[in-house]
């Protein structure tokens, strides 16, 4: 039992990078939500901001690595899994709908995350007198997470239906679907 090169990249793209991003969301959201001068002391604010800025840039970086690895490395999908899915009408929607939505909407996440990380780093505590700005950043952060969620959920299901190494094996699709 071993991971092939393709399976290793699937693990890096979805199980490592994607999972870290989704897991980091709660921490980032809590820190962004509680970024209020009334809730923190001066020292607490300094620690809070440092953690928030580092966390946001890490999330932005991870989201970039996830979409880049998905677009430029995870190309074996088009060689095997996609052919299998398109060849079988029962599951075609997983390519024409799910994969299409996933690969496009996923690219909005790093753009929005970079924006959020930049604004927090640029303004630091100077953004505290502007609650409207903080609210906009929270909404952008939530939208970025929602897009990543769509990509992650569909990616997981597609991998279940047509594993990335499917093209390496011979199969009788009609026989598999008939079961």
């Amino acid at each position, binding site marked *: 039992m071993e991971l092939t090169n393709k399976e290793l990249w699937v693990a890096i793209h979805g199980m490592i990078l994607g999972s870290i991003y989704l897991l980091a969301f709660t921490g980032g959201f809590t820190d962004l939500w509680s970024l209020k001068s009334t809730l923190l002391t001066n020292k607490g604010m300094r620690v809070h901001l440092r953690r928030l800025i580092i966390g946001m840039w890490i999330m932005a970086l991870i989201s970039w690595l996830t979409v880049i690895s998905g677009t430029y490395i995870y*190309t074996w999908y088009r060689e095997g899994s996609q052919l299998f899915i398109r060849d079988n009408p029962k599951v075609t929607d997983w390519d024409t709908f799910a994969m299409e939505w996933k690969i*496009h*909407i996923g690219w*909005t996440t790093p*753009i929005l995350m970079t924006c959020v990380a930049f*604004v927090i780093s640029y303004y*630091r505590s100077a953004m505290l007198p502007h609650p409207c700005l903080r609210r*906009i950043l929270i909404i952008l952060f939530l939208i970025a997470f929602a897009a990543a969620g769509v990509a992650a959920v569909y990616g997981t299901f597609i991998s279940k239906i047509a594993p990335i190494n499917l093209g390496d094996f011979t199969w009788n699709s009609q026989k598999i679907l008939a079961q």
Partner: protein
Amino acid sequence: MEFSEDSRTVTLGPAVAAILSASLGCFSLGVTAILAEKFSSIKILLTWWEHSGPITGVSGTAIIIWLVSWIILHLLLKRRNPSMFLVGLVSAILIALSWILLYPPVYRTF
């Protein structure tokens, strides 16, 4: 940097530039995805790397639009204080449109 020391007066222009350009980047992703779906010539033009298909050009174009618009808006707005309500509204419209345009049943109707 202590919180008490960071009470500098800053304009909201740089934040507005970052938010609007990111929203524009998302919106352009939707527009280029539709153009690639609608016109085969654009689809070929946006296929920057054969192995991945038109998503390379669709995402690449959106990133270029995002970064160029960010620089331009930053230079234009850095000393200004635009209305955050208006910025939030424009941003919400652009991002909502991007989600609608990127929904496969929608972009296939064009």
